[in-house]
């Protein structure tokens, strides 16, 4: 909680937190159906209406309310982002910890596998996974999760290795604490800082990657829209109905900005090394 307070005192952390909170609230409202219109209802006579008092962000080709769809879309995109980062963080942490703990051959094998995933071009790896499983929310989560796993493995392994040699872990070992106990108690506690930062930044990348995949036609299944799917749909309508591109575009930028600002503040406060993986 002290950390959260510190972030909120940090100027960019404050803005980032405000944006993320706003998005979470909007997504929650969308999820429980508190939208101005039914996001899936096709108001056939009101197709392609520009923003107005009735349709705040206009309507799309099928006469659906863009604002309500955005509320739903934020939820879909956040679901993909949070779930995929959860997958990547869990898998990466486990792999990183085992690599550090077992060392030697296992370390070599596990980390070389991570190197292989890193050397594999990210968006192509994600594309291949989507091609294998067929597009959908679950697939996007798996794909983005796998792509970012090696980042977390690296982030966790380095400090874990450093900690492994430190006295208090050695001491715990000699005093006969069981391995899982040592792992969870000492290592994980000391990994909180780098992991939190990495998770926040990974959320921003996950949103970017999801929208990229959707742009290439591999997003969520209709009629549920993710932000990326809405953007992809707007491509052919750009000159006819620019609002279809402008609002989802701004929304996704703002969401990514929120996570980036928050993550930056965390990094300033905690100052760990982070890994980059541009999509």
């Amino acid at each position, binding site marked *: 909680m002290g950390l959260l307070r510190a972030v909120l005192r940090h100027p960019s952390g404050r803005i980032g937190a405000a944006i993320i909170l706003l998005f979470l609230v909007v997504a929650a409202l969308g999820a429980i159906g508190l939208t101005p219109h039914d996001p899936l209802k096709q108001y*056939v006579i009101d197709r392609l209406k520009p923003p107005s008092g009735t349709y705040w962000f206009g309507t799309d080709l*099928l006469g659906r309310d863009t604002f309500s769809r955005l509320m739903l879309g934020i939820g879909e995109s956040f679901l993909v982002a949070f779930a995929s980062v959860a997958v990547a963080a869990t898998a990466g942490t486990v792999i990183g910890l085992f690599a550090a703990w077992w060392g030697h051959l296992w370390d070599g094998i596990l980390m070389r596998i991570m190197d292989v995933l890193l050397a594999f071009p990210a968006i192509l790896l994600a594309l291949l996974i989507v091609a294998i499983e067929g597009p959908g929310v679950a697939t996007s989560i798996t794909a983005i999760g796998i792509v970012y796993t090696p980042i977390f493995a690296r982030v966790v392994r380095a400090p874990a290795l450093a900690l492994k040699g430190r006295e208090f872990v050695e001491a715990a070992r000699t005093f006969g604490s069981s391995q899982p106990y040592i792992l969870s108690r000492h290592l994980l506690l000391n990994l909180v800082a780098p992991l939190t930062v990495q998770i926040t930044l990974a959320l921003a990348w996950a949103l970017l990657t999801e929208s990229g995949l959707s742009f290439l036609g591999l997003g969520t299944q209709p*009629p549920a829209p993710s932000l990326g799917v809405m953007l992809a749909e707007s491509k*052919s309508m750009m000159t*006819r109905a620019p609002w279809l591109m402008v609002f989802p575009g701004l929304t996704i930028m703002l969401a990514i900005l929120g996570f980036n600002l928050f993550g930056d503040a965390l990094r300033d406060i905690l100052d760990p090394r982070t890994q980059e993986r541009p999509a």
Partner: protein
Amino acid sequence: MHLNFGKTLLTSLAMATLLGTATLVLPAQAANLRMAWAQDATGLDPHTQTAFSSLRLLELIYEPLVRLDAQYNVVPAVATSWEFSSDGLTLTFKLDPKAKFSTGDAVTSADVKASFERLLDEATAAAARANFLSIKTIDTPDPQTVVFNLSQPDAPILVAMSGTNASIVPASAIADGSVATKAVGSGPFMLDEWDPNVKEVLSANPNWAGGKPGVDGITISVLPSESSIIDSMRANQIDFALFNDPTIATLIPGEPNMTLNRIPGLAYNVLQLNPSRPPMDNVKVRQAISCAVNRQEIIDTALVGEGKVTGPLTMAAFASDPASLFCYKQDVEKAKALMAEAGLADGFSVNVIAATGEPPYAANEAQVLQSQLAVIGVKLTIQTMDLKVYVDTWLKGDFDMAVAQNGGRPDPYPMYNRYFTKDGNLIKVSNYADPELDKLLQEGRVETDIAKRKPIFQEFEQRLAEAAPWIWISSTVTYTANLATVKGYEINPSGLLFSLSKVTVGE
């Protein structure tokens, strides 16, 4: 420093501007037509290719015996005249003595014979083979005469011969197996270079019997999306283009220097039900779905108003007025009553498959259908898939329902015998055969009198629409667009591109 930063940005923008305008004033190469499409050809063998874009490319390079004019009348191509014998069992062609392949060799009856024998050889896997099965033997009394001996009267065969899939290829290319790699034809252009997914370069065929084409060559660029094609046309980088996406094509009339050409197609948009799976095996359920669908609304929304409501037959010569077909006007009450009769008053859930971006509006079409069918309790779950996976699934008939766009033919028999007769090679896709439909198709096939064929096929259409194995929705429109500098383009149903042989490009 601040200024510096701004300056850098400004200069790069200014550079973009300068360079952008620079290309605007570069003189266009007058004699070369710059064309673009979003979907590249997939191969060069005119007998096996079925992809729309391959056929478009090949119709510039190859010629069939005959063509269709704008009214779907049969007109000369490699052949100058033709005649059925009075018993309908022989069909004789006289070939154009001027017809030559791009190599300079004359097109002879031996080439025609070899081409059709290749088409009929099962090992070729020719796309149009089924349409030529009535050919018993082929005689070549002299180099300019070809006689097809038929096993039974076969009226649609002449129209079938007008397709690019029935192109005449050199007998020598068949002999050395180079048909798929060399592309030697007797058409207006020759293929000089093909860089798949990037471009094709064509030049005028000096030996073409039709004379000298209006342009010296055509460069076809493959651009990743139709929106980038329209952008390139705005930038005066592309003279002529093909469009499939109505949301893009309908923007063109608003563009100052562009003309849109609409070509009503024979292909049709359809919701295929799978009658081998319950509850679609119940005709009442299928009819209920047909009644619940508002076809015009789908056209107005998902297809931005492009296309017309159609029954199974899309060709003007045979089509009935859609209003006369079973439940072609939305009737939700009747639909609900039918569902109740089928014991499904509460509805049911099914999956519907759709290909990503093929046709471009597939996902939108599926979503409108989803909301229309929800009214009678039919809950669709949409599953969009990559085109290749979709084709796989579609060929296996492994779906509850499918949003599809299927190709049409100028004649009803070759169009539907493959789907709705028990020996049809795509019967697995339709999962629906009916002896009465079989009988009607056969009758229509052997009848040579047009006036008598029409009522037969109209009965076929009525019956098919009422059995509703599929829900036919709308006819399609294909589009070409050209800059004002392109003159002389005419629409020809045998080929969107064939008339490029007459086109000129000027300032």
